[in-house]
């Protein structure tokens, strides 16, 4: 042993000469001499404490936060007690955000793929190289396909997304695809078909609330999740209809385990009762609505007794709820919910909800459903160049593309001629429909899409039917992912650009619409830990490199290019982002300063806004300018102008269960499960199975089972419970990750992307998350 040590320390004596000679030049040093008084960390760790206002980015809600920073490190994220949207709350995820910048797994520097795609061989490159590389590839793609739309751009919502669109528009592709069709496009479409916009619900003042399938206690939305318990008026009644006994169900005065997709029947029967018993708001209907007579005619057949057979809720209860709802109107809410990509023809379901609100006059008044007000910001008046080589969206001719993904059972005659001949149904064009878009790319119809950009979206996990997504990625000549983490999608990229976390970046001001409209922005709570940039900087960097490549600008007028250089590059991207924000807020003196101090800005002291549409002469965004109970545009497109009842898909075999998805309050979709503070709350998911069914299948609580759909199979623990209907099963998303990177949830629990079928809602382009049938077997 002693000899060993002697031999090991030989270098100290014997070979001193050689090693001592190995002098290293100062050019290699990571360290340098610190000037006197560089840092003053003399009182540690309770030294300098700062409170910096910003806004959360752990989910879509953008709640107000105040970062508590001790000696430059974020110690805790506190809720902002003054924020009128988040009402001074911060959920588990928001709190756990304090770990986000400090995750060792985050992307730290631009990475360029050196091996095969997905092989995991990378090299570090500088940002300059990265920008050059991306610009060059954009130029190559343009050159090769002579079509700027051959490059697709995917993204999800977020404050920096508008700068992503600077890049998109500077290149000139029309193929953009966002998260909306995976989330709430059906809801937006359904409510908009009646009111012309997607409203909020005033849960702080409503006396009677019906929630159909919305789990506001777990799928948190501010201010609704706050209001519906914290500020609910005395005596408020909450009726929850959900196949699962959710936490919201536990808060309800009455919970009904409604049969999936029959919510429409339930509400149609309510309409039947309310109209036949003359309980509707006659004055409101006459003043504001269009098509009441047609509606009256249609709902005649939908009696509560008819509905009882469909949705398995007693007819008498439906009658009672209808009468109570009308009784409390206009302070009655049929909750618009949020995520609604559940069933085929979900749009009609949501349209029915909206009609109920309209008929009872529960619109734009205290305690009702209220259109979102907003505080308009000043936008930069920019015209992006019109590029000659931009072709229409690849999914423009959707009808022919998506036959495969619309189950024949729901194709005809429900929707007349099938799909509207629209680029992507009734969505805003830039949203796109993920499933439709993917079909189009896979079919190369009508042209090839060979470049793919992805900003903070993870389609490999988020879009149902992962095999198809992988096939789509394989087709690409070039994939660039801008991310915070090495997501499953980033793993297949050619170049990965690390984005700063929301706690390290300046994000532009955003006007968040709602009953309590608010403006928010972000300022850095801490200095960036690594060599990361924001989308603002990344777009600027890439666009600068693009400007160096003449071939990228040969299909526009030279004068357009000059305008572009001046208006977009010099005036915006080359200036500090603070200038951009100040311009946004130029209408509101003092707003910028208040945002720095408080993290949010309101006019009028943050009072709720009611009644903007109840003014004489107000034109709703519809063909008739009225609230359309009978939708004239749908009629033109060959859709049902009135929401006729659509039958749900039925299981093919008796042993099949409908698979439901949902969330819990401590995770956002698939993105947060690896956060240690959230992971420890729930380490794996388990499948809810009704006690009676479990008995039939011989499955005990806690036992592992195999859940199988036509897409795939997963292994997961059974949670045997009375809390779910016998014909459904459920597990929360975000577990059973494919990537060993999500080290904590790798292979623990089951992934929903692995089993959900990519059924499409034909009107909104939304996916249908609840149209998958599964079998359950002992593992």
């Amino acid at each position, binding site marked *: 042993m002693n000899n060993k040590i002697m031999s090991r320390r030989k270098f100290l004596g014997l070979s001193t000469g050689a090693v001592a000679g190995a002098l290293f030049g100062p050019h290699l040093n990571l360290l340098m001499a610190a000037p006197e008084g560089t840092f003053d960390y003399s009182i540690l760790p309770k030294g300098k404490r700062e409170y910096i206002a910003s806004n959360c980015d752990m989910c879509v809600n953008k709640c107000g936060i105040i970062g508590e920073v001790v000696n430059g490190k974020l110690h805790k994220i506190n809720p902002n007690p003054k924020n009128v949207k988040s009402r001074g709350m911060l959920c*588990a995820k928001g709190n*756990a955000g304090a770990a986000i910048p400090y995750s060792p797994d985050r992307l730290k520097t631009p990475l360029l793929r050196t091996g095969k795609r997905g092989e995991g061989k990378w090299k570090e490159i500088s940002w300059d190289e990265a920008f050059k590389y991306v610009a060059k590839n954009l130029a190559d793609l343009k050159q090769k396909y002579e079509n700027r739309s051959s490059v697709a751009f995917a993204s999800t919502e977020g404050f920096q997304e508008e700068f992503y669109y600077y890049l998109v528009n500077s290149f000139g592709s029309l193929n953009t695809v966002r998260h909306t069709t995976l989330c709430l496009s059906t809801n937006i479409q359904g409510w908009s078909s009646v009111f012309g916009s997607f409203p909020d619900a005033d849960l702080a003042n409503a006396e009677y609330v019906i929630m159909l399938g919305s789990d506001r206690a777990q799928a948190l939305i501010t201010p609704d999740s706050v209001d519906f318990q*914290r500020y609910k008026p005395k005596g408020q009644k909450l009726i929850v209809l959900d196949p699962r006994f959710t*936490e919201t169900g536990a808060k309800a005065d009455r919970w009904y385990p409604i049969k999936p997709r029959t919510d429409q029947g339930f509400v149609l029967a309510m309409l039947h009762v309310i109209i036949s018993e003359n309980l509707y708001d006659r004055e409101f209907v006459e003043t504001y609505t269009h098509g009441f007579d047609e509606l009256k005619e249609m709902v005649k057949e939908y009696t509560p007794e008819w509905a009882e057979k469909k949705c398995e809720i007693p007819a008498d209860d439906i009658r009672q709820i209808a009468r109570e709802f009308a009784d409390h109107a206009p302070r009655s809410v049929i909750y618009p919910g949020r995520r609604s990509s559940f069933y085929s023809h979900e749009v009609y379901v949501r349209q029915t909800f909206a009609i109920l609100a309209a008929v009872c006059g529960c619109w734009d008044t205290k305690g009702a459903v209220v259109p979102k007000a907003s505080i308009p910001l000043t936008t930069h008046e920019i015209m992006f160049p019109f590029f000659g080589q931009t072709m229409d969206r690849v999914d423009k001719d959707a009808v022919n593309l998506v036959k495969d993904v619309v189950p024949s059972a729901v194709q005809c005659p429900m929707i007349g001629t099938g799909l509207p001949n629209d680029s992507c149904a009734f969505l805003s064009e830039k949203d796109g429909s993920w499933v439709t878009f993917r079909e189009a790319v896979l079919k190369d119809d009508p042209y090839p899409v060979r470049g793919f950009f992805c900003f903070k979206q993870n389609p490999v996990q988020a879009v149902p039917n992962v095999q198809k997504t992988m096939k789509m990625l394989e087709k690409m000549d070039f994939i660039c992912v801008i991310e915070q983490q090495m997501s499953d999608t980033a793993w297949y990229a050619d170049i990965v650009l690390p984005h700063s976390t929301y706690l390290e970046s300046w994000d532009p001001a955003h006007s968040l619409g709602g009953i309590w409209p608010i403006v928010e922005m972000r300022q850095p709570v801490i200095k960036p830990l690594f060599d990361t940039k924001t989308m603002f900087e990344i777009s600027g960097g890439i666009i600068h490199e693009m400007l160096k490549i003449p071939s990228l600008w040969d299909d526009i007028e030279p004068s357009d290019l000059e305008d572009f250089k001046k208006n977009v590059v010099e005036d915006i991207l080359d200036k500090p982002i603070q200038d951009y924000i100040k311009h946004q807020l130029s209408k509101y003196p003092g707003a910028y300063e208040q945002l720095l101090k408080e993290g949010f800005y309101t006019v009028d002291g943050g009072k709720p806004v009611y009644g903007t549409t109840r003014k004489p002469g107000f034109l709703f965004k519809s063909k008739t300018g009225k609230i359309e109970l009978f939708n004239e545009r749908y009629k033109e497109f060959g859709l049902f102008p009135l929401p006729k009842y659509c039958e749900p898909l039925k299981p093919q075999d008796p042993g099949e269960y409908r698979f439901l998805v949902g969330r819990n309050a401590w995770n956002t979709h698939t993105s947060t499960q690896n956060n240690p503070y959230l992971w420890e709350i729930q380490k794996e998911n388990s499948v809810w199975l009704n006690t009676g069914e479990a008995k039939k299948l011989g499955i005990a609580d806690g036992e592992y089972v195999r859940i199988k759909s036509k897409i795939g199979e997963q292994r997961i623990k059974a949670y045997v419970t009375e809390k779910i209907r016998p014909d459904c099963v459920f597990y929360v998303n975000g577990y059973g990750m494919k990537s060993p990177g999500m080290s904590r949830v790798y292979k623990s629990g089951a992934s929903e992307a692995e089993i959900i079928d990519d059924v499409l809602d034909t009107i909104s382009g939304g996916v249908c998350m609840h149209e998958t049938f599964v079998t359950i077997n002992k593992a």
Partner: protein
Amino acid sequence: MEKKRYAIVLDTKKCLNCKACTVACKFENYVPVGDDTYRIWVTELPLQGKFPHLHQDFQPSQCQHCENTPCEKVCPTKATFKTPEGVVLVDYEKCILCKACMTACPYDARFVSEHHEAVEKCTFCMHRVSEGREPACVETCPVRVREFGDLNDPNSRVSRLLSSRPYMQLKPEKNTRPRLFYVL
């Protein structure tokens, strides 16, 4: 002036089981991630009834800051002590880790902290309270299940809640006289 008597009053009927309080507590108090290391928790009480007539309550809880304080009594070194406001605290420097307090606590509110090398538990966030801020769990809650305040101040939110609504306490049979009150 009369001394303050701090207490937390919980309206668990509102609780969403969202776990915001438990995560906030961990960050605020440097409580490490771990199965046994937590100061506060939210229990799902057993489901009642038969499908479809179900009922379930959620019960957030933590150290009860008992007036009759079993943990303080058994502590051999006065590491566990009570402040004049009735808040039960641990002086980490005095704790010998005999864990008598852990066996004496009827609420399982204490645990061994590797960070402090001592037994630790809820402090009512006294470091925040002394700065005029609320305990982290109180502040972060979406629906304000918890209220924190002074029982000796008749106008405090805790006093008003207790005077306006019936309440219960956990394990009254132990006669610990908790400073946590659950309004019904």
